[in-house]
């Protein structure tokens, strides 16, 4: 009795192996191919395909720069996959030999070497893997001191006395621009962090390219002109935010906010006061501390101003005449007035009212008529049912 997988053209010795195979990605891929009436692929080519697609996705992600943490995670996964692959290969060869011998015994001709694949079991937990990776990295680590240029080859001896000089050099030679240098409080920390990223993580500053070693990364950065610190998206800003201090600007901001009055993104319109300007493109500090949102369409600010939602704009933007205020004299005249003005009658309403009256009258008459018709007017009538 041989256990086989028809979609992958495989045979197994026992049921467990077969079951494990069925759970694997390779099998699933072949199954899909079979549905699409395509011939199955062998494991080698499948793995090639897998690695190619992952590379592709890596390249495409260049544009949307991810945070350092996420990139590291990716690396770890990559590493993990490689380790798994090697382990799998070792097991496979062993099994291969067994299978061949088994087939010969059965007298089957084997035209193509069929690889029997077994879903490799996760022998290592993720933490252990990480540790392993870390150790590997530690071995390759290149320390870049902060006063040294991040991009120049050590041969060039681009060492400086101070961090500032080094930054100056990098700005002139490599065009490294440190953003918001006014609020940068920990220059050394920032450079040290960047150095670590290149020397330890072997990662490009700009994209998530990961080189095999420091030289590869440096080469990549030079070729692609990736020698800059990205400072556009929120993630990128957050990445290096710990070296900055923007607290001096908060005061200014609050002052500006007071002047402008209120704005809460461009979704809100002012109901009570005059319309303020909107500066929604800038981030605001969290303001829901005092603001109250009422029934989804009103926002009451701590100042007491009420903002209305712009979906109700047409109701707020009405030009109603101000209410008439009467002076004492005018009030007296109105109070003493005995003339009665004719109320202007709504023609339509009056028409329907008239119809209603008419139908009412008609109904009354109809009822009476019917009652009179059905009435028993026999003088000596005796109801048979009552006898």
């Amino acid at each position, binding site marked *: 009795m041989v256990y086989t997988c028809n979609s992958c053209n495989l045979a197994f010795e026992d049921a467990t192996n077969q079951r494990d195979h069925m759970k694997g990605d390779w099998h699933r891929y072949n199954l899909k191919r079979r549905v699409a009436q395509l011939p199955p692929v062998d494991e080698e080519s499948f793995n090639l395909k897998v690695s190619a697609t992952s590379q592709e996705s890596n390249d495409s992600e260049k544009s949307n720069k991810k945070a350092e943490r996420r990139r590291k995670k990716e690396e770890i996964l990559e590493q993990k996959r490689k380790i798994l692959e090697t382990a799998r290969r070792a097991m496979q060869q062993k099994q291969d030999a067994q299978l061949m011998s088994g087939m010969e015994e059965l007298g089957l001709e084997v035209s193509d070497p069929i690889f029997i694949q077994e879903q490799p079991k996760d022998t290592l937990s993720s933490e252990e893997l990480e540790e392993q990776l870390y150790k590997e990295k530690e071995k390759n680590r290149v320390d870049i001191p902060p006063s040294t240029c991040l991009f120049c080859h050590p041969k060039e001896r681009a060492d400086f006395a101070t961090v500032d000089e080094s930054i100056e050099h990098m700005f002139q030679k490599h065009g490294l621009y440190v953003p918001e240098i006014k609020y940068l409080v920990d220059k050394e920390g920032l450079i040290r962090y960047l150095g670590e990223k290149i020397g330890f993580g072997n990662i490009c500053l700009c994209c998530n390219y990961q080189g095999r070693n420091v030289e590869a990364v440096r080469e990549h950065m030079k070729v692609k002109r990736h020698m800059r610190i990205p400072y556009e998206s929120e993630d990128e800003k957050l990445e290096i935010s710990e070296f900055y201090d923007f607290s001096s600007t908060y005061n200014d901001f609050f002052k500006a906010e007071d002047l402008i009055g209120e704005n809460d993104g461009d979704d809100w319109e002012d109901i009570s006061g005059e319309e303020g300007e909107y500066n929604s493109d800038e981030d605001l500090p969290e303001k829901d501390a005092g603001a109250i949102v009422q029934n989804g369409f009103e926002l009451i600010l701590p100042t007491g101003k009420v903002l209305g939602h712009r979906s109700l704009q047409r109701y707020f933007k009405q030009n109603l*005449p101000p209410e*008439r205020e*009467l*002076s*004492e*004299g*005018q*009030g*007296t*005249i*109105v*109070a*003493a*007035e*005995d*003339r009665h*003005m004719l109320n*202007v009658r709504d023609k339509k309403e009056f028409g329907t009212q008239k119809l209603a009256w008419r139908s009412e009258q008609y109904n009354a008459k109809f009822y009476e008529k019917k009652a009179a018709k059905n009435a028993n007017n026999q003088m000596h009538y005796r109801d048979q049912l009552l006898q």
Partner: protein
Amino acid sequence: MNQLAVHKDDENRLLKTKNVVDDIVLDKYRTAGHIAETGMSYAIDLINQMYHLQSQPIKPISQICLMVDSLMAKALQRVYTKSENNISKPTCFNVNEILSNYSPELDDPIEVFKEGDVITISLGVSVDGYVADSSHTLVIYPAGKKPVGPLLGPKADAIVANHYIKQVVTSLLGLSLVPEKIPVEIQNDYGRQVSSKLLKTVVESIAEAFNCRVVPGSEIRVIRRFLSGQNEFLQEKGYKGIKWTEADQEALILSKLGLEDTTNTNIKPAEFFVAPGEVYQVNVTVASIDEFSELGLVTTEELNKYTGLNNKSSDSNMNMDPHIFVRDFIINYHLKLKSSRSMLGKIDKAFSVFPFKLSFLSERFPLQDNTEEEIEAVKKSFTESKFGLSEVLNHNLINGKPIKILKYLPVKSILGESSIRFNDVNALKLIKHESIVPTKSTESFSVVLHEANNEVVQLTGSQGPVFCQSSYQLQNVVIDQLIRLLGDKYGVKLKTVRAGAVVSDLRMEVKMETD
């Protein structure tokens, strides 16, 4: 159209509580009376100086009107500054047959008085809504230091009759404070109370004694805060007063013939008794019918641009359009023109419920020192205000007060019109066979029946009659008695608010004294 309404509590406060005459209210009434009196004496003084003493160049009537109004407006700015003070009646100079509301504007054709003209000056002032109106009748004598002789003829009759009516009415109103002094002869069915019927009969009998008729529109009425009959279009809740109409004259004629008109259902005035604590305004015009040989009625006619042309008594080219306007608050309309809207807003704010002239809308009103330049500036403002005026007028947001003149309607012509019932007041106005009544005299004044002090405070009307002699005489003992009661120490206590001094041109001293 939404109608304005006032809350019940407010209504109670405005119509009742605020009308209780206490010290503050009395003081406001007296202040109003003082300013009106000063304005009146200033107007009389101006006429005397221009026409009699000839110490001043003669100015057009329109300018005199504006000067008197400026004087009063400036005085009003200085008293009770927190309250609504207004001119309650722009100064009018009603000449001869003109009964009321003739107050020419600066841009009208220039008008001056002629010798022998009978002029009724009428004006009024409100301090915080407490109104004191005044009218007085003058005659232009030949120029000189003093009148050459008394005025004679029907004009004199009317003036003398009016003089007595003024005294008797004051006395009768005052008697409501001291009912025990009401003469026995007039006590009959009313007991010790002064009824409206009594007032009416007495006034009519005095007029008759001088061969005069009480002109329709004459009124003896209770005034309340902001409610002094300044707006004829208003139908006042709780109106209390006597108003003469043509039907009264008709009843008089019929009673002479020993008939009583039972078919008259039109006017049955509600009777009332004069009560202490009320404020009365008396506005009685009498017209002499001496010069008419046939029996007839005295009626009034409203003039407008078209009828006015036919009615020109003299060769004057006076402007017959209404000069005085009053806001009607019950009408609510959103005006289309911006200029009319702004004008209406201005009117509502500045004049509130009281009548006004277009010149009051000018920036330069009240005149500061009556220079040519100021008058030109006021004239210029007319073009602007007239622009907004037409729309406001067309929608009845304000109403013009038409100029009224007196007409004499012979009974013959009424009888000739078979279709008209004799007592139909309004239909009478359609008859054209009428002639102008050139002689009339109007006196109006206000009295407060002050209950706390048991005295009558006469706010306006302290001026004596002009020098004239009538050929008729009062022969009613009771009326004589009533007049004597007024001056008597033991009769009706009377206090009169006196006019203040005019310090310089258009400036007065507000200093009150009464005696």
